[in-house]
């Protein structure tokens, strides 16, 4: 009886030591869930969620401090993906959130730009080229359309231009059938 208890205790201690060692040796740095959430977020870094970027929002979602329906650029599809990942219910956009907009890029009216660099400081992805008292311009291919540069401009020379569909970006549409009226008889 006693020997059985001792054997069981010895096994428990040995296994506990293995587990404890593994926990230290194979420790995961950071929260892997944050990266998974961050991968779903659209990386516009626009701050519409109330956090200073996509990563902070992802961190807040992972810590269950933020709702999953606070990212307008991600659209309803983004909410759906987050819901699937986190095992939560889909939640429509809150009333306080801006409606998702068509994808657009910022455009600087170069005739009006005074070269104040305020927009450069605001751009979260370094997509504006320019220097003090030099004309600024948007690097359209890098612009995420976050609109953060629009407000700081003292001469209101930045506008958002919706990206139009081109032949190279055109998508086949979901098949829909035209219904033809049938005479009621």
């Amino acid at each position: 009886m006693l020997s059985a208890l001792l054997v069981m205790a010895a096994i428990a201690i040995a296994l506990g030591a293995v587990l404890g060692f593994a926990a230290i040796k194979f420790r995961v740095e950071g929260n892997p869930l944050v990266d998974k959430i961050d991968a779903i977020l659209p990386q516009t870094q626009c701050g519409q969620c109330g956090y200073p970027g996509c990563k902070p929002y992802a961190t807040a979602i992972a810590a269950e401090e933020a709702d999953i329906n606070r990212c307008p650029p991600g659209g309803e599809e983004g909410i759906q993906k987050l819901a699937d990942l986190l095992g939560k219910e889909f939640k429509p956009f809150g009333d306080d959130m801006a409606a998702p907009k068509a994808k657009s890029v910022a455009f600087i009216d170069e005739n009006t730009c005074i070269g104040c660099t305020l927009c450069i400081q605001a751009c979260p992805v370094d997509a504006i080229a320019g220097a003090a008292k030099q004309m600024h311009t948007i690097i359209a291919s890098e612009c995420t359309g976050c609109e953060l540069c629009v407000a700081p401009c003292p001469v209101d020379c930045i506008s958002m231009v919706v990206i139009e569909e081109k032949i190279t970006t055109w998508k086949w549409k979901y098949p829909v059938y035209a219904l033809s009226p049938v005479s009621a008889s």
Partner: protein
Amino acid sequence: MRTLHQFHGGVHPPTNKAQSTRTPIAVAPLPSKLVIPFHQHVGNIAKPLVQAGDRVLKGQMIGRPQDGLSSAVHASTSGTVVSIEMDVVAHASGLPDLCAIIVPDGKDEWVPLQGLDYRSASADEVRSALRMAGVVGLGGATFPSDLKLRSGKSKVKTLVLNGAECEPYITCDDMLMRERAAEIIRGAEIMRHVLGAEEVLIGIEDNKPEAIAAMQQAAATSTDHMEVIAVPTLYPGGGAKQLIRVLTGIEVAAGVRSTELGVQCFNVATALSTYRAIQLGEPLLSRIVTVTGNISDAQNFEVLIGTPVNELVALAGVLPDTRHYIMGGPMMGIPLPAATVSVVKATNCIIAASDKLFPPAPPAMPCIRCTRCADVCPAELQPQDLYWFAKAKEFGKAQDYHLFDCIECGACSYVCPSHIPLVQYYRFAKSEIWARENDKKAADIARERHDYRQYRIEREKQEKAEKLAAKEKAALAAKEAQTADGTPAADNAAQQKIQEALALAKQQAAAAKPQNTEQLTPQQQAEIADIEARRARIHEIAQSHVEHPKE
């Protein structure tokens, strides 16, 4: 006799080819204007080389290929470029693309042409010539041919020439083989030479006996090992993978290029264009187009690239009840957004569609899981599963079921008893997946740039703090030094520097000799002495004035 193999599935739609093979290929007259898109090939759009108002010659390059995957675009006849503008092109989207509008001058004046002896030229020279001649795959895919004339990791052993032309209504390759077999064979010889292939297999469906006979006769004149093979008529036997399977028994697996298995496949019309581009130096300016369907005299035309479709169909007598036009065949073709779009390198056939000829599809009914689509699928997919996934927008699942192996042949839609437009669903799913991949790439770049910016801001802050700390430290040290020996150390050092600088300046002033002080006349010397005296006086006065307040 070669043993032929079989591919999975396939269908037998009514061929409807007889209408357009009654008369030989006619040369279409010069149209009133040419609308030449700069993007007629797979890859990057060609860069315009001409401006509105320029006069161009027939065969002059008007669009230069840009970066790796691209091809050149040429003026199909001589005339004046009236504008470079966005115009509706032959594309399913109906969206405009960049085009050159050329009004022909009727002279059809050529640029000087320079052929190339491919036997003495290097393979790279031949490929470059093809690229600059704008030669692309004329079977409909318009992939730049120069890029296909490369052996991959393994050497290409077999060159397959595709003359199967399996799609209903289309007869352009058939007529081309009947009438211009010799030129096709010469082109095949060039291709074989560049690839270093051992044999050339020419696959033609057995419903084209005249073409087979003509090609056999022409192939016999070649010194290369060429074989013209009649393959069974079965749609889509003209698909590259399917034809390779039938002729060689090689199954080209998903995600594998046929060149890796030692086989390359070209359309017969591409071979002819290759011959003209290399041997004669003629760029790709025209192609054979079948004009058929709701047409009184259906036939094939040799048409200049850029000819408006409405001018072309008028030549063949289009019937009044035509509803719209289809580019390509009834199985894989796309409805043209307008009759004013122009013939491009991909236009193998124009079908005038009427309600009688192509009645509108009956409404789609629910899938009854009969799996007839799976029976006919030449890519051995499960079309019914793909349909469910595409419909539910479960794109990841669709990819798991090899959506991208689908060649969009339409055999599944053809046999579907519920008339479900299956291919439309697959096209929708494919373009959604591509768009998502692009979005993902853009998001990854944005994340990287944002992270780097954060890091940079942090680094700058740190550097600033360090600099400030160093400055403060230096100030502190100076203060300590001052309290130690009673004199401000920093001031001492500064004073010393000033003294040094003054001494240096004096030295320099002494070393510098005033110019032009020798060989002066006595009169000039007297004048100088006078001025010096005045200067000394003024100096004295000034000195006394300055010192005055001190007293």
